[in-house]
């Protein structure tokens, strides 16, 4: 009886579990490497994707009469414009009321279904990032299309679609690998925010205890070397660097959010200070005066939130060891420490003025509240803006 039962179950298992699980063929997917979202004139959104074409030839451009185009004043969605790009990749765009509708339109008008599992970069135009629509767009991309949660969120003052059109793989590597190496490189330099991945940005935007930062990038519009005052090269924003570059796009600094809305930018240097205060500056470099220093792994940072007479005091203390890697050291360790304290204070004041808690002091403030209604009634946002700031730094130069 028992053996008969075992045999029946085994046979049933073979028959039933072999009936398929609804998988998808790889060739039926359109793997998107970069995605851009721009606002369209009539309030809708234009989504541009750069994807693997599946062939080694460049995609031929389609003529205007072959593709459905959007006429003036018409709000009907349009899609399907393809452009000539480097071999192996194709750029497609669609305009619709929402990001989700535009992605659905792209899936409907191509012979393959859009797959965001290999996404490396999401580029938003600054105009769009300054609205509340940002979080909705990112959530739709994340939840409904199973986007790669490690894709980097980038904000650009340029047209986001043009931004990804200008981007191409350099040094003979694949575009996906190029983008990974690119972001790792700038992360090592410490000039882009550490938590600009899609899942981290969405989580910070949804949270009331911290705010999000995305990478800030722009087109490299300069064709000639130009000096722009005494600021260091990294104490600027992209598109204003005094140098030429074979890459058409520059990544430098942070786009700062308060809630779901972009409220300002940080330069590369300010982003480096931010990373240092946040404890995310391991093995990065920082420029101070005429010198560039490499920060060692022995950085210790501490963020504190004290209440003095009912007024919060935002505290940040940094203890770092660094080694001179370029330029001439013109300051002593004590002078560098005082400069760091001053830079950190300026940064915190700037963030307070923007109403953005990038450091995450809200995570310390929430511990004083027993439940969520008490936290929401605590008025932390107002208290944060008017809080006092105290920074201390200790520097050892090796």
């Amino acid at each position, binding site marked *: *009886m*028992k053996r008969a*039962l*075992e045999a029946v*179950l*085994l046979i*049933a*298992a073979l028959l*039933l*579990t072999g*009936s*398929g*699980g*609804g*998988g*998808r063929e790889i060739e039926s997917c359109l793997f998107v490497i970069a995605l851009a979202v721009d606002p369209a004139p009539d309030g809708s959104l234009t989504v541009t994707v750069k994807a693997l074409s599946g062939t080694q030839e460049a995609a031929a451009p389609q003529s205007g009469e072959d593709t459905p185009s959007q006429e003036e004043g018409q709000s009907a969605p349009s899609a399907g414009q393809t452009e000539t790009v480097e071999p192996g990749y194709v750029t497609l765009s669609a305009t619709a009321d929402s990001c989700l509708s535009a992605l659905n339109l792209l899936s409907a008008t191509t012979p393959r279904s859009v797959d965001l599992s290999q996404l490396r970069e999401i580029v938003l135009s600054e105009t769009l990032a300054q609205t509340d629509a940002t979080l909705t767009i990112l*959530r739709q991309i994340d939840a409904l299309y*199973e986007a790669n*949660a*490690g894709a980097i969120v980038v904000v650009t003052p340029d047209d986001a679609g043009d931004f990804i059109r200008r981007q191409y793989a350099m040094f003979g590597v694949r575009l996906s690998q190029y983008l990974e190496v690119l972001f790792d490189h700038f992360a090592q330099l410490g000039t882009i925010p550490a*938590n600009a*991945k899609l*899942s*981290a940005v*969405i*989580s*910070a935007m*949804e*949270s*009331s*205890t*911290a705010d999000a930062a995305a990478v800030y990038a722009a087109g490299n519009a300069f064709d000639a070397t130009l000096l722009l005052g005494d600021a260091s090269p990294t104490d600027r924003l992209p598109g204003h660097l005094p140098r030429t570059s074979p890459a058409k796009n520059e990544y430098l600094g942070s786009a700062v959010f308060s809630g779901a809305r972009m409220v300002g930018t940080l330069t590369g240097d300010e982003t480096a200070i931010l990373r240092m205060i946040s404890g995310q500056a391991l093995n990065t470099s920082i420029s101070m005066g005429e010198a560039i220093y490499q920060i060692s792994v022995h950085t210790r940072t501490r963020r504190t939130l004290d209440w003095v007479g009912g007024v919060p005091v935002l505290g940040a203390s940094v203890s770092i060891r660094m080694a001179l890697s370029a330029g001439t050291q013109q300051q002593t360790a004590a002078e560098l420490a005082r400069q760091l304290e001053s830079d950190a204070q300026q940064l915190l004041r700037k963030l307070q003025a923007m109403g953005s808690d990038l450091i*995450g002091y809200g*995570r*310390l403030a*929430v*511990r004083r*509240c*027993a*439940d*969520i*209604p*008490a*936290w929401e009634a605590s008025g932390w946002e107002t208290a944060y803006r008017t809080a006092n700031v105290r920074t201390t730094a200790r520097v050892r130069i090796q």
Partner: protein
Amino acid sequence: MPNTTPESVVAARIRAAYRVRACAAAVCTGAAVFALGTGVGMAICLNAAWLAAAAALPACALLTLLAHRALTSSRPARLRNALLAALMLLLAVFALAALVSLAKQTMLPHATISYIARTSFLMAALCCAFGGAGVSRLMFALRFVLVLGLAALCALSLRGESASGLFPLLGPGARQVALAALCMLAGAAPVLLLALPPAELAEIDEATRLGATPGPGFFLWRVLLGGAIGVLLLAALSLGGPYERIAQETSWGQRMLLARASGPRAGGTQTALLILQAAALLLCAAQTMLAGAQALSAALPRLQPFALPVVLALCAGLLTALVYTGLETTLRAAPLLSLPAAAAGALCLGRRESP
């Protein structure tokens, strides 16, 4: 020279069988607490679900003492066994529903719910078909892997994360935490499988078995450890991100995924965690099915040759019904499992008889 008299060998064998049974109850309790916490607790009190789940631990302790009392009595208890059979069957369905939700969200996102349910049920049924002792012994063999593996993988997954995800400690409020705690009492129900003696001791005479049965402390610390692991897993889920993220997660399977909000959702650590979570839920389903069959044969001795096929058929039917009505139906009914558990526990308080 070691004492190897036949009596001591039998006593050691009895003790070993109870040790295996206690581990099985611990794993089932931990899995039930985790599944109930993610399904019901988080929906009610968000990041404070781990605090509400802690209320299940005293219930686990009480039910362990009651089950031990029943275990050491030779008084026939058909009503209690019938109630236990029904309770174990429902627990098995609940564990399978949790496994299906987890698999749908993570391992098989493109598969249909019915396919995942069929596969999960068949895997649990195959575990049962090869003997009840095997499932318990597998849980005993994996006890360190499950406990230490889950702890290590949680720590690895959450490294660098601050403790702010636990705050505010009371989540939406004390009332919601209290309501969730009431619902979480059902997480202690699997402990009642301790009221059934291990099947491998069937050929030993009852007097010898009762004489060698360990005291309640033998079972108590194991069961509490299992429940505590479930509570700690819920705390780890809260640590993974802010309470707003939990409020956004509408799917049961989504809430079971342990990953830092700012960290990767795929990779070796997450895959290993998923395997351990799925294994615990599957073993819980198989063990409770077997306990249900054992209780059914004790309640209706004439049904003994058919007890397991009856339990499997009922389980398959209930799971199929859930697939069509929606797995979320399980979550609305799951807190009510505390009622038959309380009734069965009360029946364990009956007058004790010695052989």
